């Protein structure tokens, strides 16, 4: 905590005149109430943030499956064929479908967040977020096409 003595008077929460006569609001540094372990049930925006973070669990699990594929490839043709049979079995196909949905959610939320993390100024003001988001989607479509073309052509 900052020592109240060291605060500049105009930044003090108690200086009503200053607060009432400017648009500036001091950042509230008082400790926030702990929302507990179920904060993500407190509304859709909390829930979407939680799902966004949860996508990483599914992506990590999928990558472990994918490392398994490389391991099977390393062991030999027979192990690889057995592994692909497992990967294409109904339970793992369902898991992969859910993982794909989570991965797409990660892609969309990540691209849409980028303008908030990367601030590009044109003169004094930031450029429109669309100038950053649109190229990301275009590159994504290009990269995805290359990957699918390499595997399936």
């Amino acid at each position: 905590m900052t020592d109240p003595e060291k605060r500049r008077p105009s930044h003090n929460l108690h200086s009503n005149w200053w607060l009432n006569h400017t648009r500036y609001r001091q950042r509230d540094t008082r400790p926030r109430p702990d929302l507990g372990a179920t904060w993500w049930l407190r509304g859709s925006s909390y829930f979407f943030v939680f799902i966004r973070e949860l996508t990483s669990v599914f992506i990590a699990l999928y990558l472990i499956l994918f490392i398994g594929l490389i391991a099977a490839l390393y062991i030999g043709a027979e192990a690889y064929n057995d592994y692909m049979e497992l990967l294409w079995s109904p339970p793992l196909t369902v898991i992969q479908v859910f993982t794909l949905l989570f991965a797409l959610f990660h892609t969309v939320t990540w691209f849409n967040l980028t303008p908030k993390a990367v601030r590009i100024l044109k003169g004094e003001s930031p450029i429109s977020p669309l100038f950053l988001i649109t190229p990301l989607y275009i590159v994504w479509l290009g990269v995805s096409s290359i990957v699918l073309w390499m595997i399936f052509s």
Partner: protein
Amino acid sequence: MKPRGSNEALFWLIFSGGGVVSAMLIPSLIASTILGGFGIEEAQVAFSYDRIYSLLSNWIVRIVVLAVIGASLMHAAHRIRHTIHDTRIPIPDPIAATLCYLSALGASGLAALLLAGL
């Protein structure tokens, strides 16, 4: 007090890089391995041992695959570490962080060894 955020910048750089890599490449990767599960024969032929082996015998492909695995796992590790904290799972952060990052590094190392030995 301990100075905060001394290694946070490095982790954030890895985190954001991994976020971009997994956003760009993971959906198409999953889409490619899913299709065989729907009984699409062309997809199953595309994933035959010989085809995938010859695809991964290219060193550039190997390096890209390893980069995707490593960066995405580090990204996921960073998010899982914070999710453990945010959902109040009672694991102290230093332990959770060590477990997350070390398992991501370990799995990436395993992938590197397997890819190098193909």
